[in-house]
Structure formats: structure tokens, C-alpha cells
């Protein structure tokens, strides 16, 4: 039995990169930053470098402190409610900015981002199909 999904947006990514990287815009109040971030279905939340939060005018340590784990250890980051936009799809999201200035990763994770999308991937063609998930 075939299944069919319809998508609003098509995003291309570079298949030669290590991972799937796409452009994302974060808005907070009247500020915004544009970031190239890696999609990571293993990340609970979206996490970004500290300086991006500071560029948005956020006082990082005033956010919701959360401990994050990796294969090699753990670190703290601070959460804020922002608008996360990928391929013109805007989502009201909780994202985190790393406490440590040397943290140099930017990842798009599940809670308030991936979980609110219909996501189609054709890896070898470098294409992602996206729609906002609207429950019936």
C-alpha cells in the first residue's frame, strides 16, 4: 500500500559535507541571526554557539539552564523562546545557547523544531522536503 505526503518546501544541502547542514534564522524581539546548522535527530533540543545568543541581545545566563550530554561528557546551555525559521517555515521554539564560549557546534534538534515538522529526506540527492505539521 503506497503512502503519500505533500510538502510545502524543498531545501537543498551539500552532500559532500559531514552531515546535513541547512540555513536557519533565529529571531528574538527585534533582532535576528542567520546560522548554518546541522540537523541532528539525536539532539533533544536545538543548541547554538553562545555568541549567537549574545548577538540577539540575550543575557545568556538568564535563560533556562539545562545539562546536555554528549558521547564524551556534558555541558550546560541556556534556553530561550525564539522564532526559528527554516525555508520560510516559522516555529515558536525553545532553543539553547551554550554556556561555554568555546562550544562551536550548531544543531537543530527535536523539541519545538523537528517534532513540529513533516520531514522528508533524499540523502544522496541532497534534498529535504519540509512542511509544518498541523494536527487534525
Amino acid at each position, binding site marked *: 500500500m503506497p503512502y503519500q505526503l505533500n510538502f510545502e518546501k524543498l531545501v537543498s544541502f551539500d552532500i559532500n559535507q559531514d552531515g546535513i547542514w541547512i540555513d536557519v534564522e533565529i529571531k528574538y524581539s527585534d533582532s535576528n541571526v542567520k546560522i548554518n546548522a546541522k540537523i541532528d535527530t539525536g539532539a533533544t*533540543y536545538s543548541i547554538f554557539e553562545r555568541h549567537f545568543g549574545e548577538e540577539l541581545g540575550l543575557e545568556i545566563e538568564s535563560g533556562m539552564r539545562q*545539562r546536555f*550530554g554528549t558521547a564524551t561528557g556534558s555541558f550546560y546551555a541556556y534556553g530561550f523562546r525564539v522564532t526559528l525559521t527554516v525555508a520560510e517555515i516559522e516555529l515558536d521554539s525553545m532553543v539553547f545557547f551554550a554556556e561555554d564560549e568555546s562550544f562551536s557546534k550548531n544543531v537543530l534538534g527535536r523539541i519545538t523544531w523537528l517534532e513540529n515538522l513533516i520531514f522528508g529526506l533524499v540523502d544522496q540527492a541532497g534534498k529535504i522536503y519540509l512542511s509544518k505539521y498541523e494536527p487534525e
Partner: protein
Amino acid sequence: MLTTIEAEIDVNGKITLLEPLKISKKSRVIITLLNDETPINQAKPINGQPKADDNLQLEWLKANRDQYAGKYIALDGDILVAQAETLQEIRKLTKGKNNLFIVKVFAQETVVSAGL
């Protein structure tokens, strides 16, 4: 001084406040049921930003998320509207309500995955 705020009452009589309310002592209230069909929350101004102060909501999350650790919560400003185990469940509970912020929260010291 009289204070008026918007609230929702369900068929079982349970009242949920839809706006922040700070009181310093036990107070008398009068409940007025509206008979119009205005959808709850849609009467509020929405400019792409939550009506309530972002800082109040963040402070609520910081102060209360441990109590709801591992659950999805729906907030209207700094008012908790609903909680549930899953995103689908909380969407059902809040169906028809606009301008809510829905997020799953964890205790601060719970190690959540950074992927990477």
C-alpha cells in the same frame, strides 16, 4: 479596586486563568459567564509575539519545570494551561486555543542529549 481577567471554565466547573494574576491575600471573586462565541484567546492582540512578558514566562519555566520534568506543558504567558505526557496529547487538550507556547521540559540536572 476591581480587577478583570479572562478565564475559561469547563463543563465540570474547573476554572483556568488565561492571564497572569497576582494577589496578596485571599479574595472574593464573581464569575460572569459570557454567552458570546468569541474563541478564547483570539480576542487578545497577537503581533507574532506572546502577549505576556517573555521574561515572566522564562521565570515561570525556570521556577517550575522540575515539577513537570519529562512532560509537555502549554503556557499562556506565565500561566500553565495544560500538561501531558506526549505532544499529541497536549495538542488535543489545547485544541482551539491560540498563542500558547508548548514545550517539553526536563529537570535542570537531567542530562538530555546534545546529539553531536
